[in-house]
């Protein structure tokens, strides 16, 4: 168990290091002249030289990378090239937005997807099952920007033009300043994200449940005289849930790295948007920070999922 954890953490660190090297290297391979971008069209060579020196871009790449690592281990991600804000601050502002978005959506899609999946599996080929299947198909095939735009159109535009301004179109209110407004601003993005992701969970839960419901131990459970509800939830769903939990861990972690499209559509200043703007502006310190953070989430989620696996299934031994 301890050995497992140690090994996984070590390999995780290796993965993160490789990612940092690639992201760092990519910046120097990619075309573009950052000092000129910052300085603007009417810049003198002296100014450009000054900026290059300030950003440390005149030093050899290895030295620059070493400085980056050195700062990283001191918990300092450097400064944005543009507004000289510290990257720590930028991430600190964007992370709560993304966490709020991801966790709210995750709860919605997990509860929604799993319950629809269970209902579908309990009554296969019923009207509810078919409705669930169609819903899942729509969710799977619809691009996330489309559902976002549709929600905006129906819930914001149409309602507002009819005098019912129930949903704000964009923006983020920190939960610390006003929890109600926080939720109010996030309802639409939550629904948009949950809708497209829930589809996977409907399919996954339904298929797993159908498989488990045919198992001998479900017949045993039924022959014991416990209620159908208890057989479905305690016996069948419990067994069907393991792969769902795995999928959930990875999906949530991916989302924590930033939901680029959804954040963009609903004007949420989260990690996804931060990543996109910094990539466009070649704001290297911010790019590396967002990429590394997303990678950390994935690496950690994988370890947590494997640990959970052993908790959920007593037959699994971690080695």
């Amino acid at each position: 168990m301890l050995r497992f954890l140690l090994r996984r953490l070590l390999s995780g660190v290796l993965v993160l290091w490789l990612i940092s090297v690639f992201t760092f290297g990519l910046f120097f391979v990619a075309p573009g002249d950052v000092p000129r971008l910052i300085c603007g069209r009417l810049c003198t060579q002296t100014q450009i030289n000054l900026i290059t020196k300030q950003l440390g871009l005149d030093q050899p790449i290895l030295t620059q990378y070493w400085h980056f690592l050195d700062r990283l281990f001191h918990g300092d991600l450097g400064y944005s090239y543009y507004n000289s804000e510290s990257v720590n601050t930028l991430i600190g502002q964007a992370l709560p937005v993304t966490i709020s978005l991801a966790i709210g959506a995750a709860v919605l899609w997990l509860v929604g997807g799993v319950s629809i999946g269970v209902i579908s599996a309990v009554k296969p080929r019923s009207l509810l099952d078919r409705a669930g299947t169609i819903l899942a198909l729509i969710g799977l095939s619809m691009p996330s920007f489309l559902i976002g735009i549709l929600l905006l159109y129906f819930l914001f535009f149409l309602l507002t033009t009819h005098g019912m301004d129930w949903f704000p179109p964009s923006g983020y209110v920190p939960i610390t300043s006003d929890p109600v407004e926080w939720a109010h601003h996030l309802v639409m993005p939550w629904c948009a994200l949950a809708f497209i992701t829930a589809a996977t969970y409907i399919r996954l839960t339904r298929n797993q449940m159908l498989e488990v419901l045919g198992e001998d131990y479900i017949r045993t459970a039924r022959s014991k005289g416990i209620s159908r509800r208890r057989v479905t939830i305690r016996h069948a769903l419990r067994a069907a849930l393991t792969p769902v939990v795995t999928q959930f861990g990875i999906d949530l972690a991916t989302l924590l790295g930033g939901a680029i499209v959804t954040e963009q559509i609903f004007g949420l200043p989260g990690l996804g948007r931060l990543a996109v703007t910094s990539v466009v502006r070649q704001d290297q310190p911010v790019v590396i920070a967002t990429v590394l953070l997303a990678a950390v989430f994935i690496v950690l989620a994988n370890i947590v999922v494997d640990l959970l696996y052993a908790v959920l299934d007593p037959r699994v031994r971690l080695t």
Partner: protein
Amino acid sequence: MSLLEVSDLRVSFRTADGEVQAVRGVSFDLEPGRTLGIVGESGSGKSVCTQTLLGLTTGAKVTGSARFEGEDLLTMTEDELCSVRGARIAAIFQDPLSSLHPLYRVGWQIVEMIQAHEPVSRAVARRRAIDLLGSVGIPHPAQRIDDYPHQFSGGMRQRALIAMALALEPKLVIADEPTTALDATVQAQILDLLLRLQQEHGMALIMITHDLGVIAGLADEVMVMYAGRAAERADRRGLYYRAHHPYTNGLLESIPASSGAGARLRPIPGQPPSLIRLPSGCAFHPRCAFAMDRCRTEQPELAVVEESPRHTSACWLPPDLLGTNEQVKEDRRAASAAGRGGVVEEGAA
């Protein structure tokens, strides 16, 4: 009054290929404390028959009646069935490896069963579960109760399932091939255990198997099933020594030990019929060495072949041709030849 009276039970399933007639009019009854063996090949309807009694067949069309202590199991609501299942009729299934929930402790699964039917505390139910595990021969039950099923051996899992089945002192236990998945030595132990527990608790037992040898030492009465119908029904002695139906005879001759050392096994030729497109007349006629013209067109009902003990067989052969000795076989062949319109030798029938 009989404990269980099943009459004209019919079960069919609708599938993409057509209607599967799994059980086609089976009747039997069972007295308290007695053992009924149901024998047949896979697909003979023996498992479907008993699972239907417990309402465990989903999506099936069921007709007939099955009165248990006077109440018809087939017309019960799900709630009523839940109070019967486990408490009054318990079941033990074939594969102990897959019949226990892999994610719950063995003790938890027994406690759940007790608490589903009796308002006892967890601690009391657990105490009882430990006693039960001990009584079915699991060593150190107080420690093993917290094991997961994968920590048990196959025989121990079947013992645990038997303990669970007996937890509420049911009037009837249905054991569906309880030893098929086990090693031969363990098989004998499990059968002994079942027999001992039955004597201790006085419960009735329905033992389903494809192996006549398994019920030889166990059943008071035996029903042989073929293609969803009863082929023959007799007490144990009658069935083993004075079998009438050619299918029963075939089963007896395919038991290795009964043919004696060095003797050739005589398997029944052919395959069990499709339950979607059943043969006309007697469903066994395509595989029967004694088939007559009548067998292809008319389906025989169970008819008395021996008055005492009551012994019935669904076969058109003359009722007095009982047993497997050579003379009887000769007589059967003659009768069959006569039925096909052949010449009967004087005195042969």
